[in-house]
Structures are given as structure tokens and as C-alpha cells.
């Protein structure tokens, strides 16, 4: 009898069962499918959060709640600042359009004070407080708001979702491990007579473990690859067939590193199953003489 990875044809006949028989490949396939989908969603969420955070990192707004007659001076001062880029005053008509959603026709009234809004980016290293001081020197009612403060709750939610995805992946891997332990114990019960004979003839625990471990490794590899391929097809269909995935992930896509990580998942699941099976079988065999 040879090792787990180098078994001979004779070794493979010892258990008398065909590879991929029994429920193990199916159980692992379901786990693999779920893990793959959740991991892909988690990675897409992480990418979304990163994109979102990057897009608002240096973005600020000057807001004058009741509008301002000194808007041209404010704009001139900001244009003159070396720290400010991408300056974009929001036109009053756009502000009224936004207000119309809540106020209806009243938003067109000239009596309604319309806030003045100027969006801009700050160069890296620039001091927002200094900019705010300069702005308020021109228009005391103006406030300078960082966009990242406004979207912080959204980013926190996205990060929480990533952690939830990671937790689900770990839980599913745990459930897969439990299923493998049951499969290994079931295999020991099924092949009890064979194992007793092998022990009696002088087989070591490692030799016997190798036989069961090998079958579970093959079953797990087939199951996890099948599940991952099915999950990849589902994701590809969603991505190409509708904008759903794009909406779900905030327009983020999976990068090469993400795809590589996803591609490793079925093999990692197989490795986990193999190690778990080995531990479960060895632990059970130690209870025998």
C-alpha cells in the first residue's frame, strides 16, 4: 500500500467503491456553490466600497443655506487657491430641480431661498480647515462639508456586509467540514470489516486513513469544482444578462486578484476536506486496539 497521493490500482480496489459514489460530492458541491457566490458578492462589495470611498475622499462642498450674493467672489477665491481642483458650482436651476422633488411647484417660487452649493476637490495634503477659514472670511454663513462624512454610514454598512459575507463563508466552510467528518465516519462504518482485516494483517492507521482520505479528496475535488463552476456560470449569466449585478455591487466588478482568489476556493475547500477527513479517521481509528 502506498501513500495517499501515490496509491496504486490495487490500493484503489481495497475499499471496493467507485469514486464519486455516495452523497459527499453533492454536499460539497452545494457548499462550494454557496461559498463561491457569497465570496464573489463579498469581494464585489469590497470593490464597491473602495471605489465609493476613493471617489469621495477628496471631495468637499461649500454650502450657503439661504444662497449668497457673494457667490462670484467665493468662486474667484476658490479658483485662485492652489489647493483646489475640479471646482463645480451647482447651478440654481439644478438645485431647484432637486428641491422640486420634495416641494413641487413651490420650488420654482422666487420667494424660496435656494441654497448655494459649490463642489470641489482638495489636493492631497491640503488643509480643509484653512480653506473653510478663507471661505467664511468671504461669506460667514457658508459651511464646508467633507463628502466622506456624509457617506460614512453607507461605507460602514458596506463594510458590515463584507464581514457578514466573510462570516457566512467561514460558517459554510465549517458546515462543509462537519459534513466531511460525518462522511469519514460513515466510510469507517461502511468498511468496518475491511478495516478490521487490514489492521489484523498489519496495516498502519496511516495506510487505512490514506484509503478513505483519498476517496474523500476525490469526492470533494469533484464536488467543489462542480459547485464553483455552477456558481461562476450563474454569476456570468447575471452579469451579462442584466444590470442586476452591477446595481447590486454599485458598478464594481471583480478584478484579476479577486478572480484568482475565487479560482483557488474549490482547491482550498478540497484541501480543508482532505485534512478534516484525515483527522476524523485517525481519531476514530485510535479508539480501536
Amino acid at each position: 500500500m502506498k501513500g495517499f497521493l501515490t496509491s496504486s490500482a490495487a490500493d484503489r480496489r481495497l475499499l471496493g467503491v467507485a469514486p464519486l459514489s455516495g452523497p459527499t460530492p453533492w454536499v460539497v458541491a452545494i457548499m462550494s456553490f454557496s461559498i463561491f457566490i457569497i465570496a464573489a458578492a463579498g469581494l464585489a462589495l469590497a470593490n464597491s466600497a473602495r471605489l465609493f470611498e476613493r471617489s469621495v475622499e477628496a471631495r468637499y462642498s461649500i454650502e450657503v443655506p439661504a444662497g449668497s450674493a457673494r457667490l462670484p467672489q467665493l468662486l474667484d477665491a476658490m479658483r485662485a487657491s492652489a489647493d483646489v481642483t475640479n471646482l463645480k458650482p451647482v447651478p440654481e436651476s439644478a438645485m431647484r430641480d432637486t428641491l422640486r422633488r420634495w416641494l413641487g411647484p413651490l420650488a420654482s417660487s422666487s420667494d424660496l431661498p435656494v441654497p448655494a452649493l459649490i463642489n470641489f476637490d482638495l489636493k492631497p495634503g491640503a488643509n480643509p480647515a484653512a480653506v473653510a477659514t478663507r471661505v467664511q472670511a468671504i461669506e460667514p454663513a457658508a459651511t464646508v462639508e467633507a463628502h466622506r462624512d456624509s457617506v460614512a454610514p453607507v461605507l460602514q454598512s458596506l463594510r458590515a456586509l463584507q464581514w457578514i459575507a466573510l462570516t457566512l463563508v467561514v460558517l459554510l466552510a465549517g458546515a462543509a467540514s462537519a459534513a466531511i467528518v460525518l462522511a469519514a465516519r460513515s466510510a469507517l462504518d461502511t468498511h468496518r470489516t475491511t478495516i478490521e482485516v487490514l489492521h489484523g494483517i498489519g496495516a498502519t492507521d496511516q495506510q487505512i486513513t490514506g484509503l478513505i482520505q483519498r476517496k474523500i479528496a476525490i469526492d470533494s475535488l469533484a464536488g467543489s469544482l462542480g459547485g464553483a463552476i455552477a456558481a461562476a456560470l450563474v454569476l456570468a449569466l447575471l452579469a451579462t444578462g442584466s444590470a442586476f449585478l452591477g446595481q447590486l455591487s454599485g458598478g464594481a466588478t471583480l478584478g484579476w486578484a479577486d478572480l484568482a482568489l475565487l479560482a483557488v476556493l474549490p482547491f482550498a475547500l478540497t484541501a480543508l476536506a482532505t485534512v478534516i477527513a484525515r483527522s476524523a479517521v485517525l481519531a476514530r481509528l485510535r479508539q480501536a486496539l
Partner: protein
Amino acid sequence: MLRDLDFRLTGGGFYFLTGPSGAGKTSLLRLLYLAQRPTRGRIRLFGEELTDAPRDAMPHFRRRIGVVFQDFRLLRHMSAFDNVALPLRISGVREAEVEGPVREMLDWVGLADRSSARPATLSGGEQQRVAIARAVINRPDLLVADEPTGNVDSDMAKRLMHLFSSLNQLGTTVVVATHDVGLIGATPGAELIRLEQGTMVDPTGALRNPPGRGA
């Protein structure tokens, strides 16, 4: 249950184990082929104290023991050839060196033409011969057989006992549990171990203190 057993087997000896059903023959054999540890007392085999030997040490000693089980214990999903080859493969003999000895052994027990047959397609006697071939293929230091001729005709029984005697002459210690008194009578030089109600009948003390070294 076995009790008050104290005996030594001489290395290279030939022993018959007899006694009525339930006397403890199979239990004693299980202790001998290391399928069980005693709840009390000590077992010394091949010069080693094995009562408390670690689990990992057992396979090494078991490979030196050939066992013919009363119920054969052949692996049903494997051919006669693979069953006989099992001890060699477990011992790590290269595949190229397995075929010759296995074919020779199957030929010797008269099953050369049934090498690819599975146990379910073999008669009781044929299965017993496969079990015996498996037990002796490794030329064990100790051969333990539980009713090895129970399912074979008298001619085959003689051949099997001749095989056991040949192995014994090569140095293998043989312990055969049997009810067949004819078999015992036909094996000159063999010693008798009689069990009754879990203990040994040894009125002369010859088994307790045999001449020569212990097995």
C-alpha cells in the same frame, strides 16, 4: 472469559488448541494475534512485552503473524488474487514482486484457475484455502489458525496441514485451534493445549515451563 492462563510457546513449535465450544479458544487466539489486549496479566511475543505496547508498534508485530480466521474474513469485493496479495502489499512489497509469490501460493492451494474469482463465487472450501494462502504468503513467524480445515475435504485438509508443517519446519510457530482429533493425531511432534471454562488444562506443567526458548 479467560482466567489464570500462564504458558509459553516454544519458538518453532507446533500447537493444537482444543477444548469444548465456549472454552475460550477464539479469545486466546485473539490475544495471540494481537486483536485484543488482556484486561489483566501480560503478553510477551517475539521477545517483546506487548501488553502495553503503543498502538503504532502493533502493525510491525501483526505483520509477523499469519491468521486464518474461522469465518475466513476475505474481502468480498476483491479477487482471490488480491486477497492473497494483501499482506505483501501492506508490507510494502513492490507490485512487480507480488505476482509471482501470489500465483505460486494460489497454485499450491489448488486455486490457480480461480485467481480472479471473488469470494462470493467460491465454495466454502475454496474460500478457506484463499484465507490460508493469505495467512502464509508472508512466511509469518507465528501462524494462528482457527478451525482451518473445517470446510475442506480430507485430502485438502492433509495438504493444508502439510503446508503448516512445512512452514513450521522453516521456523514458523504454528497454533491451530481445532476439534478434529484426527488432525492432531496425524501431526507428529505437535503439542496439545486444552482449554476448559476459560483456563488451561496443564497437569504436567509442560506448557508453563516448556523446554527451549519462548515464541
